[in-house]
């Protein structure tokens, strides 16, 4: 209850903070969460259009940044708690929970989220945490797969990603056909869509650091997902964010977990190589 009132105060403060647009550059600041310093600036991998990759945290208002830095105030931590509950809940015909096979997530899932998406030899494509969860549910629990953006899917993904808090993002492109998915993702990143004719690069590369209306454009990094958003007072999954950005170009949106969005996830995740996982990050 106490937490709830703190949350309300914080969210009101951050909404009114939107009216202030005194700066246009990413801030010069450090981020420490649970006594651990996050890597929020990293040298870009070879072949990257930028010299330095920057966490989206650096582009947010001070209230939003402060909320993320304080796990007690971060509303996204409620999703982590909910995810932990689901981790230990038996579901499906085989009478199992995630913990029946994986035991204590803080040990077995430590750093795992920092290395997804991963090549899946059986599916012959890259999979993300959400797909991996559904795979376990159908194959090993005899449970229904979660529907895209089901509250449980987002909470469990948040919980698993949170076990990598602070760990640098690093995906393995040498596995299977990851490299060709990366290429496909890169092509999509630079393809202009919709009536407004924007590509991802129009906003997150060419206009990075600028304001589009009241929004301070970041590099569009994925290291904080799922994120908590004040605007909608809830968690936002990565494919939800991708779809939202594509919708804003006035284009038809690809389906969540479609080949297009998986290729994009592989490529955009690579663009954030070296940044700490910040899940659950806080955004306005």
């Amino acid at each position, binding site marked *: 209850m106490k937490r709830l009132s703190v949350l309300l105060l914080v969210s009101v403060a951050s909404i009114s903070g939107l009216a202030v647009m005194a700066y246009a550059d990413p801030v010069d600041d450090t981020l420490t969460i649970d006594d651990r310093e996050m890597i929020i600036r990293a040298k870009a991998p070879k072949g990257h259009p930028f010299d330095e990759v920057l966490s989206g945290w650096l582009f947010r208002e001070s209230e939003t940044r402060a909320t993320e830095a304080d796990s007690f105030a971060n509303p996204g931590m409620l999703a982590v708690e909910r995810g932990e509950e689901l981790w230990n809940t038996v579901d499906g015909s085989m009478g199992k929970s995630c913990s029946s096979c994986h035991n204590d997530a803080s040990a077995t899932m430590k750093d795992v989220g920092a290395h997804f998406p991963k090549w899946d030899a059986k599916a012959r494509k890259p999979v993300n945490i959400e797909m991996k969860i559904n795979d376990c549910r159908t194959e090993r629990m005899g449970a229904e797969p979660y529907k895209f953006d089901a509250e449980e899917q987002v909470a469990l993904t948040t919980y698993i990603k949170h076990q990598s808090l602070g760990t640098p993002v690093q995906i393995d492109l040498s596995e299977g056909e990851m490299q060709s998915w990366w290429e496909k993702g890169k092509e999509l990143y630079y393809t202009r869509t*919709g009536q*407004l004719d924007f590509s991802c690069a129009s906003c997150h590369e*060419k206009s990075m650091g600028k304001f589009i209306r009241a929004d301070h454009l970041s590099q569009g990094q994925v290291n904080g997902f799922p994120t908590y958003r004040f605007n909608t007072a809830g968690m936002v999954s990565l494919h939800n964010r991708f779809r939202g950005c594509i919708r804003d170009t006035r284009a038809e949106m690809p389906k969540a977990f479609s080949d297009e969005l998986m290729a994009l996830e592989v490529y955009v995740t690579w663009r954030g190589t070296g940044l700490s996982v910040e899940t659950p990050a806080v955004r306005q």
Partner: protein
Amino acid sequence: MKRFLTCVAVPAFLCSQAAAVEIAPDAVKIDEMKVSQSLTGATGNAEEGAKVLANRGLGNCLACHVVTPLAKEQFHGNVAPALDGVADRWSEAELRAIVVDAKRVFSEETVMPAFYSLDVGINVRKDLAGKTILTAQQVEDVVAYLTTLKGSN
């Protein structure tokens, strides 16, 4: 419909004025960064143009441009140069060309959308396919407003 009937009924040379038909998006000619003819055959309304420019569902020009005379509107972006004094830098015909299709004026690389062109991105939302962002009338209204942006106003 009424206008069309009038035209059939009278000799073509008498009709041309009344029938001044809109120039369709794919018929607009951009020569040397200029569209000299009004898309509607008439001068636009600057006051309406200011509304189209600010409206998020129409021009939404403030998403990217600062326009100081419209300071009462919230949140002007800075993706692009301020439009203050833009009529000192560009003629009316050039401003029309920029609004019609900035790619054919600046370069393919520009992030500014083409407001009166069908040469846009892929997978356009179904209900918008074949439609331009602004109508010919709205383009003319915006151009009329832009031509008022002179000096340090």
